[in-house]
């Protein structure tokens, strides 16, 4: 419960709202509410907020000391719902409160919401249901389930009349720059944090990734089968999978589908063991269903026997119908879905060479059923995802954040990474935090190029980032690029992100296909760039589809340090922390230097008349042709040898080889 008995003497304030313009969704996409004019100014998240005439003011959140009585404007289209935000006074910074009248105040900052500091008051349960369910179809609105205890019902009789005429002439000024600046930085930092947390969970969810990948393989192979058979109906696709021993393209394509289903079933069975399908299960299912409907056991047994006899005499397969029913019933054994899946593929294939309306309808039905089962299996795979734990916030404690410098401050490394790798990662995050996506729509190419330039320049200070191969490829100067030559894990994840800055799902597909390790890095890059307000509900679901306060509260507590009134104090505290971040840049230099030294020690020293310093100078050139020419002219190393050496160098010492 957000407010407890000890809050009894606390003052509360109320902010009247309406569902018009997706206000509910807006609040839960950023977990905050701001003065209305801020939405257009802030350049992230939604750029609109509905204002209720006479009760709102553009330049402040107008808070009432009692729930206000208000009506929604008439004449507008749509079924709009009233609800009221209730917050305790200790959420507000007293220095920012504007006194308007007795029982009315204005607040000119963003109020950040969490499970413990607000309630939403609705006027009926039905309206709660409508608001919450509608929000489920909105991408950036995080799940309300984290806040399921925050929705309450209020009686209209509890609402008070207010004279709000003072608002019409109210003139408020504010220097919004400070508010916008903070909100922006915090949005990207919070995005990074959830990107890291959800990314780490996904990195642990190898099972889920494998299951989903194999489901996609089934979809792909069935699509290929349908497509090839649709375009070439003369071929015998319909019975291809039944022909044993023979091989042809048609048979192979058909068998590919069943092979994909078999492989996935094995995977599911390994991870989610359950009993195999048996035909006697159908009889038990029918028995139970009919018993529940009041039929006696004897009559049921007779019925089942009758149906079996009917199938024999008429050549029907009534039990096939019952099998479908059984497989779709609530048996909770996902292994049985595969049986049903095979049925649908066979049902589709059986009608391939017929052009009757019935055959077309059967194919469509089989195809629809196939998709539905795949969706259900996908949900089963989702359930195998690693679950958040009560200690997850510990990962966040590894970072502090300087709002002033808009940078992370490392407190402790993430396990499994070397100091150099971690330093490289954090340096990239800092660049992204300072260059988050602003405005609507896809990330402009110039912004992505700028990021690549900055990262490349950081990792290779002797050269402009614009000459890197990745930059040249994205800018269109090069038509080909081979990311497989990149060795550094952080760089591989960075490439995954810059190739897919607008869709976390596409990035996920890229990461899975390319088998990129430590994929939490890519998720955190993506989320830092796009910001919390743009994170999809699907991505952050592990932390929002739960109302377990032991999971959500420590994370919210971590964030609240940054937006409580002691913000200035926080910056002072940060200055006292050791300058760990200097190690970040140093580590990157060390990385490259170390690699060159190691290469020299292993492949050059004693084999060529070249000192370490001379070798380092050679490899500082951008162009491999120039390196080879220098080796020949200055150091009398034959061209053939030079080519071999430089190629080996480029293969091994790739970091930062997005910049090859």
């Amino acid at each position: 419960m957000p407010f407890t008995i000890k809050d009894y003497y606390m003052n509360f304030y109320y902010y009247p709202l309406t569902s018009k313009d997706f206000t509910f969704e807006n609040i839960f996409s950023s977990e905050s509410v701001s003065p209305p004019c801020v939405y257009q100014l802030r350049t992230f998240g939604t750029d609109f907020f509905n204002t209720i005439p006479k009760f709102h003011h553009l330049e402040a959140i107008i808070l009432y000391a009692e729930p206000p009585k208000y009506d929604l404007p008439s004449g507008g289209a749509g079924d709009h719902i009233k609800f009221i935000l209730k917050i305790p006074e200790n959420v507000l910074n007293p220095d920012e409160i504007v006194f308007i009248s007795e029982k009315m105040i204005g607040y000119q900052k963003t109020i950040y919401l969490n499970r413990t500091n607000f309630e939403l008051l609705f006027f009926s349960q039905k309206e709660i249901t409508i608001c919450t369910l509608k929000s489920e179809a909105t991408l950036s609105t995080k799940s309300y389930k984290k806040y399921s205890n925050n929705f309450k019902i209020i009686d209209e009789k509890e609402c008070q009349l207010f004279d709000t005429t003072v608002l019409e002439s109210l003139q408020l000024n504010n220097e919004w720059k400070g508010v916008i600046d903070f909100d922006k930085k915090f949005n990207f930092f919070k995005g990074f944090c959830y990107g890291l947390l959800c990314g780490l969970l996904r990195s642990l969810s190898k099972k889920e990734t494998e299951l989903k990948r194999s489901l996609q393989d089934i979809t792909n192979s069935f699509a290929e089968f349908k497509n090839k058979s649709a375009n070439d109906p003369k071929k015998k696709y319909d019975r291809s999978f039944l022909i044993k021993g023979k091989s042809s393209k048609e048979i192979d394509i058909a068998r590919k589908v069943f092979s994909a289903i078999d492989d996935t079933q094995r995977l599911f069975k390994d991870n989610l063991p359950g009993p195999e399908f048996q035909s006697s299960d159908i009889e038990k299912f029918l028995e139970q269903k009919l018993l529940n409907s009041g039929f006696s056991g004897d009559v049921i047994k007779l019925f089942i026997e009758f149906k079996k006899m009917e199938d024999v005499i008429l050549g029907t397969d009534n039990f096939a119908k019952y099998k479908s029913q059984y497989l779709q019933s609530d048996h909770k054994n996902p292994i049985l879905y595969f049986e049903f899946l095979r049925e649908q593929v066979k049902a589709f294939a059986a009608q391939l060479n017929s052009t009757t309306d019935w055959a077309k309808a059967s194919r469509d039905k089989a195809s629809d059923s196939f998709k539905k089962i795949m969706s259900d299996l996908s949900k089963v795979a989702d359930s195998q995802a690693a679950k958040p734990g009560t200690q997850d916030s510990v990962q966040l404690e590894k970072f502090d954040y300087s709002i002033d410098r808009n940078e992370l401050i490392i407190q402790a490394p993430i396990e499994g990474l070397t100091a150099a790798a971690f330093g490289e990662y954090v340096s990239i995050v800092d660049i992204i935090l300072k260059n988050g996506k602003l405005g609507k729509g896809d990330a402009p190419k110039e912004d992505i190029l700028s990021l690549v330039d900055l990262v490349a320049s950081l990792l290779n200070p002797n050269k402009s980032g614009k000459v890197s191969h990745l930059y040249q490829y994205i800018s269109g100067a090069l038509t080909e690029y081979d990311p497989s030559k990149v060795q550094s894990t952080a760089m591989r994840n960075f490439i995954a992100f810059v190739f897919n800055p607008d869709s976390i799902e596409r990035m996920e597909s890229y990461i899975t296909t390319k088998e990129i390790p430590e994929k939490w890095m890519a998720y955190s890059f993506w989320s830092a760039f796009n910001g919390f307000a743009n994170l999809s509900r699907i991505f952050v679901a592990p932390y929002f589809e739960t109302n377990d306060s032991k999971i959500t509260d420590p994370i919210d507590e971590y964030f609240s340090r940054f937006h409580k009134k002691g913000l200035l104090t926080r910056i002072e505290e940060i200055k006292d922390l050791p300058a760990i971040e200097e190690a970040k840049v140093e580590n990157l230099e060390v990385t490259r230097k170390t690699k060159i030294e190691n290469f020299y020690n292993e492949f050059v020293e004693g084999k060529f008349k070249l000192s370490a310093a001379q070798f380092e100078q050679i490899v500082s050139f951008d162009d491999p042709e120039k390196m080879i020419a220098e080796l020949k002219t200055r150091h009398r190393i034959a061209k053939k040898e030079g080519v071999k050496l430089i190629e080996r160098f480029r293969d091994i010492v790739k970091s930062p080889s997005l910049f090859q």
Partner: protein
Amino acid sequence: MAKEKWLINLNEMDEFQRQILDLSIDDSYLIKGCAGSGKTILALRRAHNIKVQSIAEKKPVSFTLLVYTKALRSFIKSGVIELDLDLNQVVHHAVWDESAVDYIVVDEVQDFDQEKIDTIKNAAIKSLMLYGDSQQQIYDDRMTTQEIVEYLSIPQRELLLNYRLPKSIASFASHVVNDIELVKKCVKPGNEKPKIIQFASWQQELDFIMKEIRTRNLTDCAILLPYNTKIKAMKVVPRNVYRNVETVKEYFDSKGFDHEYKMRDDDHDNWDLDFDSELPKVMTCHSAKGLQFEAVFIPFCDYPFHGPWFINYFQKPLYVGLTRSYRHLYITHTNGITPFLNGIPRALYD
């Protein structure tokens, strides 16, 4: 399976789209929207809202989402499932049983004849929501959206902007058919210019396409050609032996490159592309009408101008093909770019 593409992205919506989303489910409207205005997503959202109302009021409501083409039904299948709607309620017009339901939502209403529109009107107990665009009418003898509005006496709302096609591609494509209005309608600035790349042979063009799809892991892409089959292609111009779906399909098969293809231009019942698969789709520009892809490849763009008849065979379909991409557009050629693309200012492509 792509889930996010079926959810409404409020951060990207403008006032016009929000107003449409906010309309009461109990009121009837015709929503006139140009290509790329988001009609299909709005239609799905309307269906979702109906379902929400049913749950909130704890009483079942019946509705039908009626579509004109099988292609569209196939396209939105995964969206229907993701929003937890019943696929049985999404019906192709040819198999609709015309039973009365509380709510009817119709996509591409401009393609239904008057008799069907009467049936739709009579079948809707509480309200109708019709989405359409007269500019995309397939048949000449159908009513325009304005005529439908007057006939049914329902109000109309308009979505005049194209939210799908990036300006960077629209600017490029508008030079092909001299359509200045196209760019004005586009909202999305676009972060990539179209690419025009020359190769030494048509096989190299296809090799590049395969490589690019693998490098970027493009899971939503199409390769668009002027012709379906070798025979059809060669009938027009004998040198067109490779500028067709059949040749590309064979080449990809020879390289073991998995893909889907469509060799017929019509909405034939054997037609079935699966938009949930990650396989690249090979089809004609004509077949791609109404569809959208993250990446579009248009190879073999080096056909010379043969005469005025060429406009219908190449220029118009090329325009359709160019406007199918919402992100990446690649045009490749071997023997010098086709005259249709020759005059495009250099600054508009990479």
